[in-house]
């Protein structure tokens, strides 16, 4: 079995089994938040990594999901089990809208324009505090379930389902089209792909997943506040995505699972707590200097090699390809590596 698949399997088993073995509420709380943010980061990756629509305003979808779900469950008294889905739907609508407005933009223009949308929403929230709660947000929400363990399971299982779904989607024909759009949109259009429709669909799907995460987050913390729309959150997801390695889905998830508990853990120390953002930024910077393509691709390249003939992945200890029997070069010279890419 491939090392990367073994790692993923171990991770899934550990996630599911953890509360049975060790149910410290503090650890469960951090892991619940980690799971929610993992969905958020994975949804960003589908949009930015695969499709190349590097969204600097991903917090808009998170906030849209959080506020929709919060308003519906508080003002209309609907159970959170239903409003979470409504939040995802509204966020998908926002995704469609943002995608529609940004159809003609590309590259840095798109990134910088998308940065604007959550801030416009934030300005409107502050201007109408009667409806949105202003700076305090909407508090007093019900949790989806009561006990910490069941909350953890809700977050972890929905995270596994959504992330696996996104990964399947990105690995399918649909995902190949997204790669094509990122690499050369004109060529993709020339090949008869309606790139407009694909981009809108990806914006809506990524929006829905991020909105779902936002709604879960709001119900878990029992408050939907303006911090769910801030620039800091949008930047945070960009950092997670690129740190983990874009266009992989599992990369950003791995990044969240490393960076979020790490910052929380650092924050729990007396004296170090104030410096945790500093340490976080320095770690990100240093890791990037050594692995500029991100963490997950770097680790994967260490564990596995790709067969030069049939592109099948092999464990790095193999001498010949397990599928086609071609010899796997243990040492690739620098010149060959440069030509190969």
């Amino acid at each position: 079995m491939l090392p990367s698949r073994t790692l993923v399997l171990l991770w899934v088993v550990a996630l599911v089994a953890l509360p049975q073995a060790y149910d410290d509420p503090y650890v469960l709380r951090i892991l619940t938040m980690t799971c929610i943010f993992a969905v958020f980061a994975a949804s960003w990756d589908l949009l930015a990594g695969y499709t190349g629509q590097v969204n600097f305003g991903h917090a808009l979808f998170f906030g849209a999901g959080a506020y929709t779900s919060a308003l519906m469950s508080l003002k209309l008294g609907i159970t959170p089990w239903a409003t979470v889905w409504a939040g995802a739907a509204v966020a998908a609508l926002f995704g469609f809208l943002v995608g529609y407005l940004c159809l003609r933009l590309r590259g840095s223009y798109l990134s910088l324009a998308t940065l604007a949308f959550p801030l416009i929403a934030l300005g409107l929230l502050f201007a109408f505090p009667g409806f949105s709660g202003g700076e305090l947000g909407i508090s007093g929400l019900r949790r989806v379930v009561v006990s910490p363990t069941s909350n953890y399971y809700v977050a972890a299982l929905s995270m596994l389902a959504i992330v696996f779904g996104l990964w399947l989607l990105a690995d399918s024909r649909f995902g190949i089209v997204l790669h094509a759009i990122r690499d050369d949109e004109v060529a993709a259009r020339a090949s008869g792909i309606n790139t407009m429709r694909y981009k809108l669909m990806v914006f809506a799907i990524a929006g829905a997943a991020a909105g779902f995460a936002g709604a879960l987050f709001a119900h878990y913390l029992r408050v939907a506040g303006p911090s769910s729309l801030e620039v800091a959150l949008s930047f945070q997801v960009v950092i997670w995505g690129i740190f983990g390695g874009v266009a992989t889905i599992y990369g950003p998830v791995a990044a969240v699972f490393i960076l979020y508990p790490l910052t929380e853990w650092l924050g729990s120390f007396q004296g170090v707590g104030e410096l945790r953002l500093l340490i976080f930024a320095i770690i990100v910077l240093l890791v990037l200097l050594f692995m500029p393509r991100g963490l997950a691709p770097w680790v994967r390249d260490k564990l596995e090699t790709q067969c030069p003939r049939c592109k099948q992945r092999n464990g790095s200890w193999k001498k010949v390809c397990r599928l086609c029997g071609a010899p796997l070069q243990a040492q690739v010279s620098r010149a060959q590596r440069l030509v190969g890419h």
Partner: protein
Amino acid sequence: MLQDILVTGLVNGGVYALLAIGFSLIFGVARIVNIAHTAFYMLAAYCFYALLVKAGLGFLLSGIIAVVAVTLFSMLCYRLVIEPVREHEAAVLIATIALALIFQELMLFTFGGHYLGIPSTLDGSVRVLGVSIPYQRLLILVVAAAMLAVAWFVLYRTRLGLAIRATANDLEVANLMGMNVHRVAMATVAISVALAAIAGVVVAPVFVVDPFMWLAPLVTMLAIVVLGGLGSLKGSLIGALIIGYVEAITVFALPAGAYLKGAVALLIMVAVLLVRPEGLFGVAFEEER
């Protein structure tokens, strides 16, 4: 109220222009979306504060030292952090975000999170058109105008400026023509951060200095640059004035305007992008393959 709008818009527009032109330059030459740009502006304001209030140096001396120190520091950062990952656009992007966060946290740790006030450089005010303008705001306007003139001179009347514009136009051809594009990029970083640092020093006495003062101008600056067209200096200048006036009008004319000023400015940007995806003065160049 009309005079207030005219004056505030002009002063804010001048500061935004200093920031936006620097950002635009560095984007044009090195294709770096420098999120840390306004963080250098924040650093300069802190440096000015430390030299002026803590060390007790004069206004002029501390201003000059602050600008020079921040500029040299930015070149160091570029050399150590940005250049090693230049080939990976995504890595450059989060490297600049991480740099900005590091500066913010360092200032938070060194000076604390509270607002710091800086005594005003010049006291008194002058009356123009029936509205009194404090000399401090006039100084901002004069410095901004002078620095824009200097930047224009450097870019359009010197060999370095020619090299910068050539590199911005086509990096590979500039390299083939024998320009040292690395050194040009370094010079551009220095010029662009120097402009931001000057902006930080002149506005410090008017605004309060705090570790999060880089976020609001960052968003406005990005809006201006996108509105004017990425990499276009004329666009940045005109965009800065437009956004400066839009913000002034929103604050003075609308109820709850202070909350909405950012939103209205960003809405204008989105509206312009819908009509002209490359911004007002941007060039829709062929995608590099």
